[in-house]
């Protein structure tokens, strides 16, 4: 392979590496906020719920179900790890209402997350706590329970954090077999709020410079095309 070929091949690679490294660095230097949004919730009733899978899953589910106290607190990951253990049991669930309140006759559907963004760090804006996917459960709030919910979580908005006592259904017949929580009572533990996302000034400057560069490059291309 001759030198000019090596140069032709290595140049694009160098450009790709530079773009990736530059974008990564720019993201790292984004301005951060000092948010204090931790919601104080008691620990779950069961410390650990193993995944119910394999041949003996019903025995495991039954054992977990027997240990679980009436109206004990559960997390969404526990419910998903062994849905049969909690089927038709009264549970306490705490989390942030996200998305929207989906209005239906007799009540509303809402999704309630109990992941670290909901209960510890707040929405992923102005901080860099990368703690994975969102996790939560679908909740049916009958009329008379959802009226106290005022804010739902979206971009730069932390929704109301609510405490729900209700019945967990592994395969809800009124939701086509969905995994749901039917709320009996609801209270708001923390009111929702908006996070003022700080402007990433350096990113703004880089964007302006690159936009000018793009216009210049396209102008050059047009100029060369006309001269050809």
């Amino acid at each position: 392979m001759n030198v000019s070929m090596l140069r032709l091949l290595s140049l694009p690679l160098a450009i790709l590496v530079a773009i990736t490294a530059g974008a990564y660095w720019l993201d790292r230097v984004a301005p951060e906020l000092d948010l204090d949004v931790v919601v104080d919730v008691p620990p779950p009733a069961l410390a650990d719920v193993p995944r119910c899978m394999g041949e003996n899953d019903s025995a495991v589910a039954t054992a977990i179900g027997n240990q679980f106290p009436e109206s004990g607190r559960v997390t969404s990951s526990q419910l998903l790890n062994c849905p049969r253990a909690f089927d038709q049991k009264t549970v306490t669930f705490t989390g942030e209402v996200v998305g929207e309140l989906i209005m239906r006759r007799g009540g509303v559907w809402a999704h309630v997350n109990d992941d670290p963004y909901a209960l510890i760090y707040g929405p992923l804006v102005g901080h860099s706590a990368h703690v994975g996917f969102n996790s939560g459960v679908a909740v049916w709030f009958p009329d008379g329970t959802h009226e106290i919910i005022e804010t739902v979580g979206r971009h730069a908005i932390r929704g109301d954090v609510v405490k729900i006592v209700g019945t967990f259904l592994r395969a809800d017949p009124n939701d086509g077999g969905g995994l749901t929580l039917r709320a009996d009572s609801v209270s708001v533990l923390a009111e929702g709020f908006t996070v003022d996302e700080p402007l990433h000034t350096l990113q703004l400057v880089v964007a302006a410079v690159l936009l000018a560069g793009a216009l210049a490059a396209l102008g050059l291309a047009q100029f060369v095309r006309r001269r050809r």
Partner: protein
Amino acid sequence: MRMVLRPGPDDLKLIGYYLGKVLFGLGLVILIPAIVALSAREWNAATAFIIGSSLCLIVAGLSEALLATKRSLTWAHGMVIVAVAWLVGAIFAAVPFMLSGRFETPLAAIFEAMSALTTTGMSVIHDLDHTPLSEDFYRHLLQFAGGQGIVIVVLSLFVSGGAQAGTLYAAEARDERILPNFIRTARFIFAVAGTFLVVGTLALFGALTFAGFTPSRALYHAINLFFASFDTGGFSPMQASMAYYHSFSVELVVMVLMIAGTLSFGLHFALWRGDPKNLLRHLETRTLAVTSTLFFATLATGLVLAGTYDSATAVFRKGFFTLISAMSSTGHQVNAGVTYLTDWGVLAPAALVGAMAIGGMASSTAGGIKAIRVGLAFKALTHDIRRILLPESAITVTTYSTGRRQVLRDATARSAMTVLLLFIVTYLIGTVTALLYGEYALTEALFEAVSVGSNIGVSIGVVDPLMPQGLMAVYTVMMWLGRLEYVAVFALVGYLFAIARGRTNA
């Protein structure tokens, strides 16, 4: 190998010139969410999109100015351009993701972009439920661009010669020539997509409004869901995926769009011309009808045996929907992924793995081995059995229909079998890689490898923002291979070998 000729600098310039055209198209695509971000006053997202778009346009402008050539494309050039375009395109498309603060590493951002462009639909985004509107829109828009084929964007808009475009078209795993001219074929594909975009979005908007969404939010969800469903992508505006909506009517519209997305563009053309018989006698339609019936019977039996659901409605809304999502290679979920492991027993997930492996139709937005190859492999098998059973002097001829009746030839059967085998090898590599980490059970590793390798997107929980980086890298390559169905990637490897070891043309 001594006969392999080493490509010269002119060949690389030609490839660079066409890659610049692809990046020009991508740069324009990224400008659309920039406008959305500005109108939604999402300033940081807007600057991220402007950076991503500008980088594409700078490279496109410089390649046009410095590398322009009137040389004709050969098939080898076409294959290499497409293989590299999907890699480089994913890296450039990942720039706004890298700047979003929602991806811990550049690899995660590239994974997300590759997943979007290849319409796989696996996501590693942190805190999706608090994502800016424009970023969410961008994720879904990329699925639309990828589903229609980013190279097709180049063909129909920026390339003047139909013959030049043809090499790129075939290399992008779109080998069905609907119309005699490739440009007209590409534009027909846009016409189909455009019509479905209007009708599908309106239908989803109606279903979502009926389901209790406010008009503005219904529109937001409808546009994103359309992109994800018709292009068999599978992303969703919310982490809960389709389970978020609690609406049978929304699920029905999405199912229709998923099925429409998995039909080949050739069949769309036949339907547009009012020729439904073509649909019924097509080998792919018949293969999908038989396999989906068998898989649904298996899946339903599995769900009943496991005691997962006790009503036909639940089996349909959860089981049938998931099967359509898997077979169409969309990846929408009506369950949390881990429940396939903890609540679906053994048989139902196994049926899903089979459905995901086969995937949809060739020359559609669907992924997987493709029904045509499975149908051809089955035809070849029955052909061989007949040859054994009949007297030696008998002449056996096997035919099949793909719009017109054709005789099954050895070369066609061998080609189908080869790609089928390559997909299976890829699934095994993905499975073994996951198992090597020691964190996943065999069921999880196999399920996820098939889903990723077939560009499906139904996840059992292995793909996660916090998954091992090595596994993420392997899955990224698998999505790339699955989308291009290997040929273009092999051509690229051969080209690199020729650059390193080939003979110079005297």
